């Protein structure tokens, strides 16, 4: 079980820096380098990737997802890389530490309010929260509990994948954990998709604007 839970590597003025923080720095550098390399040699690939994500999220949201793509696309890329990078030996995936999912869910929590207030104005947004006034407590409980469930879903999936690999590794160290690692990659990509889709549905429920979906799938045909 050693290596499943994050460890403190060094301390800066009493605050412990865990290995997941270091691996998330490595990951950010890696994402930037990969994006720059692709942007230099094959600019169409990045565009196609983001167009695919945009089409997918527009289908889910029911409105055009382009204004929210900087946020949603970077969340999706970050979580996908963070879940998958754990298969490299010596680098622990940042989402294995519960603080990373908490931070992501807090960002989502505040960005839902930000987009809602930006779209409707403060007073209209507050009025839409308490549309029949009797539903206000349930709405507020829902706001908090969905952040909690976003956090726990991401963290639980990743930690359970790591733990299954660790248990298989303790029993049979050779070749047998490989299917479990493959399952971990699948779960990681799926969880990134789920997190982004849930975030986009929260944002779509918060803005509720009636813009028509732009024709983005011309290149698919």
């Amino acid at each position, binding site marked *: 079980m050693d290596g499943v839970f994050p460890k403190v590597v060094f301390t800066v003025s009493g605050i412990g820096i865990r290995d997941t923080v270091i691996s998330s720095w490595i990951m950010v550098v890696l994402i930037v380098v990969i994006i720059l390399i692709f942007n230099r040699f094959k600019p169409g690939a990045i565009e196609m990737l983001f167009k695919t994500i945009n089409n997918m999220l527009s*289908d889910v949201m029911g409105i055009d997802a382009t204004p929210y793509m900087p946020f949603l696309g970077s969340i999706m890329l970050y979580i996908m890389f963070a879940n998958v990078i754990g298969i490299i030996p010596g680098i622990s995936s940042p989402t294995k530490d519960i603080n990373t999912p908490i931070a992501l869910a807090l960002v989502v929590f505040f960005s839902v309010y930000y987009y809602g207030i930006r779209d409707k104005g403060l007073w209209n947004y507050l009025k839409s929260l308490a549309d029949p006034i009797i539903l206000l407590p349930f709405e507020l409980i829902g706001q908090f509990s969905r952040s909690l469930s976003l956090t*726990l879903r991401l963290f*639980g999936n990743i*930690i359970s994948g790591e733990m299954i690999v660790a248990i298989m590794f303790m029993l049979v160290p050779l070749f047998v954990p490989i299917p479990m690692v493959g399952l971990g990659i699948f779960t990681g990509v799926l969880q990134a998709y*789920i997190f982004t*889709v849930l975030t986009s549905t929260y944002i779509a429920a918060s803005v509720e604007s009636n813009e028509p979906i732009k024709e983005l799938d011309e290149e698919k045909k």
Partner: protein
Amino acid sequence: MFENASPELIITIVTIIVAGIGIVLGTAVPANAEGKAVQKALESIARQPDSAGDIRTTLLIAMALLESTAIYVLLVILILIFANPLISRFF
């Protein structure tokens, strides 16, 4: 049997039993529900193949929401096993 056992040992034994029972219930019920969801989704895809994309997206979101209940049980049991609050606080 446990007359001379320390409270820590009893709490550990109870924790292990609870973890075993809890993980069985906590995975069987969501698995049952997910099976029902997949069954209905497959039936409706077979009936209307045109709306397969919408059904697949909704199914994935619903499966994630159902799956998270099993994940909550898993997290509670991980806390019980690896970071049991009773053992370190009261003894």
